[in-house]
């Protein structure tokens, strides 16, 4: 290999490592003008193009896997580049090849699982994510998605199992604990749900979130019609805010305990609907955080 090619590759890689993707892409493409089949330059051009959101990523990475068909990472990158270009079928095929070449890479399985799910193969997704979760005990990405996918498919108990495992592995994971609380609530495991919300009062100390948690705790008690306990929580809630939902909850629970009072309360159906919306808002706040960091 001539020196200039090595120099191009080195400079392109340095720029990529420094997250200067435009420079990295330019250098790699310039280098490829001299030698179009250079695997190192193809890899950098493809990866930099992917960072820049360019469709050319699939072209360079496609050429790369032709040069290095046994390179699992190249197949993985091609899969993700195709996913970026909304080519779901192509992405799945590339990721499947990557996993076959390197069965021990859990991150590839996580991606394959997601892509399979997006393609409608929920069972295959479950298999890949379960395997990834088994292979990487410190990484909860697979478990979080696994739990969500199962919930969306109506397999709530299986979703709880995954969320339970996530919380066991990452006891301070707020989104995981919240998810476990909600899943248990859905299945009528009120004591378990309440335990998770109690745990959340310690974990989720962001300003304003205490109100969300106490409302969820009231919801659990309303579901199991433990009115005295619900009243206790409703009173605590009034120390946090006097918003309409809080005062409506206090009135509603009081009416259940002591009969209809002076303050009219909304019907149970409306109360439950508003509490669901409140939970959804709380979930959204944490989902935004996850989107910022990656799951």
């Amino acid at each position, binding site marked *: 290999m001539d020196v200039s090619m090595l120099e191009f590759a080195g400079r392109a890689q340095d720029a990529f490592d420094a*997250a200067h993707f435009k420079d990295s892409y330019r250098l790699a493409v310039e280098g490829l003008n001299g030698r179009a089949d250079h695997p190192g330059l193809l890899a950098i051009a493809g990866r930099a193009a992917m960072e820049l959101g360019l469709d050319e990523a699939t072209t360079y990475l496609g050429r790369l896997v032709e040069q290095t068909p046994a390179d699992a990472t190249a197949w993985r990158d091609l899969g*993700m580049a195709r996913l970026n270009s909304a080519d779901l079928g192509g992405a799945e095929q590339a990721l499947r090849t990557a996993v076959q070449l390197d069965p021990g890479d859990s991150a590839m399985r996580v991606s394959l699982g997601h892509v399979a799910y997006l393609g409608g193969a929920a069972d295959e997704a479950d298999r890949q994510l379960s395997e990834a979760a088994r292979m990487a005990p410190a990484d909860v990405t697979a478990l979080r*998605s696994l739990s969500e*996918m199962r919930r969306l498919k109506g397999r709530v108990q299986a979703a709880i199992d995954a969320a339970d495992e996530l919380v066991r592995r990452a006891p301070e994971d707020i989104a995981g604990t919240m998810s476990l609380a909600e899943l248990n609530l859905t299945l009528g495991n009120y004591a378990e749900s309440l335990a998770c919300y109690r745990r959340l009062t310690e974990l989720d*100390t962001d300003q304003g979130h205490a109100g969300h948690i106490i409302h969820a705790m009231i919801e659990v008690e309303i579901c199991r019609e433990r009115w005295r306990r619900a009243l206790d929580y409703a009173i605590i809630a009034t120390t946090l805010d006097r918003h309409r939902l809080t005062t409506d909850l206090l009135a509603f629970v009081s009416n259940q305990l002591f009969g209809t009072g002076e303050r009219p309360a909304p019907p149970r159906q409306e109360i439950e609907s508003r509490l669901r919306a409140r939970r959804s808002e709380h979930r959204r706040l944490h989902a935004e955080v*996850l989107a*910022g960091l990656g799951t």
Partner: protein
Amino acid sequence: MSQNLTITPARPATETVQWTKCPSCDAFLYLKRLEHNLKVCPECRYHFRLPAADRLAQLLDDGVLHELGQDVMPFDALSFVDSRSYADRLEQAQRKTGRRDAASYGRGTIGGLPVVIAVMDFAFMGGSMGGAVGEIITRSAEEALQTRTPLVIITASGGARMQEGCVSLMQLAKTSQALGRLKEAGVLSICVLTDPTFGGVTASYATLGDVLIAEAGALVGFAGPQIIEQTIRQRLPKGFQTAEFLLGHGMIDLVAQRENLRQTLTKMLRLHAEGPAAPLPAGRAAALITDPGQIARRPAWEVVKLARNIGRPTTLDYAGLIFDDFVELQGDRLYAESSSIVGGPASLAGHPVMLIGHQKGHSTSELVARNFGMPEPEGYRKALRLMRHAGRLGMPVITLVDTPGAFPGLGAEERGQAVAIAESIMEMARLTVPIVTVVTGEGGSGGALALAVGDRVLMLQNAYYSVISPEGCSVILWSNAASAPRAAEALRVRAPDLLELRIVDGVVPEPEGGAHTDQVTTAANLKEALVTTLNELMPIDPQTLLAARYQRFRCFGTPAAHPAPAMAGASAKEDD
């Protein structure tokens, strides 16, 4: 303390594959794809909230910010303690976000144009405004003032920071007065309101920009919806306090999708950049007519009918045919948006101007939507707001008049129609930039004059301008509506009549069959007239301009000052 304003991904996506889920539609999203989509869900278009660094990366050229104010740090002036000390909360927020506080500022460029930009980060204690945030915003305004560079502020905040008590409250005054100075000095400020912006931030700098842009779907308000519901004990309507709701209620200028935001800002900055010092280049269209004898006279009633022709070009038609980059700004910032008047900055032959005009339509549905070009008070207040904007920023004003009159309605009266018109007339007389008015269709009385106190008042050949509609005059003076044609003659509403009376200074020629038969030629003629007139007015200093404008309207009805028209009576005789 350094701050995390890294604007390129520190870890390439290929190194760590990441997934997330849309909280709105539950779709699983590949994070890199979401980022390339500017963190808008590709499935349901849910706009994820953006950290300050992502905002800067999306808006600034190459994502490059030269950060200033790195010495600004929050401090616990009250030694505040709730369940935890404020100092602890600050430390936790700093650790979590890698930021000093909820705002940063610096210099950069957008579309190649320099800006001072301040950006808020909701992730830091809900974007709440304490002393440090107030200091950042104030310094950004001061930097913009000192360097006469446009200021862009991106807001995201729950409001004032409780833990700093009245120190936090005082930030409303501190930041507002800084924005006030910027306005006085005629330096452009643009506020981009993102989700969520509430409380003390909305009640100060967030809504004081010359231009207010809200990101689509953003929630913006003063009091939070829960507090309002609790207070009024009513459920709030769907969409309450969304960007779109605010637009409909006249509180913001425009709503932008995230993917269009950078382009919108670029356009806005370009339209407020100084125009070339050279005269505007003239075209080859028909010249403005200043001699009444050169205008072929149609019967007045025929002119009225031509002026009302549904195919006649509207302000928005002219905006597209004559101007480049017209950006419509909406709302009176008081009560509502009135679509009977449209306006916004535009470029005329390369020079920034403020275009304002009545707006009708070409179909029944359009006419209904625009209230037949009959503005309510909000329309005049919007126009006045835009004229003041132009005055502050040194942009000539062009007004296009085409209205049967101000809307005669119950609500319009309740909300001060007469006051709105009067204020518009008075303020136009005092505006320190050149004003060119063109009556393009119907010039219906006070509703027309509210946009027509110009240094030069022009008229299209087949437009009419009158103190009352011919039908109205006919009913009052002839006791029937059928005498409207006679009334039109008697009122001398046509362009040559008004040129003789010096109500107008020039007449823009129309194609033989009327403006509606050839919109392009009409627009070319109008553009020629505007260019010629502005070239005459722009070199004049403001004081001379104001004095001349005063005299222009001072002389009407003053004996000796108002010359008798040479052809008085001739046209009436002709049509009898």
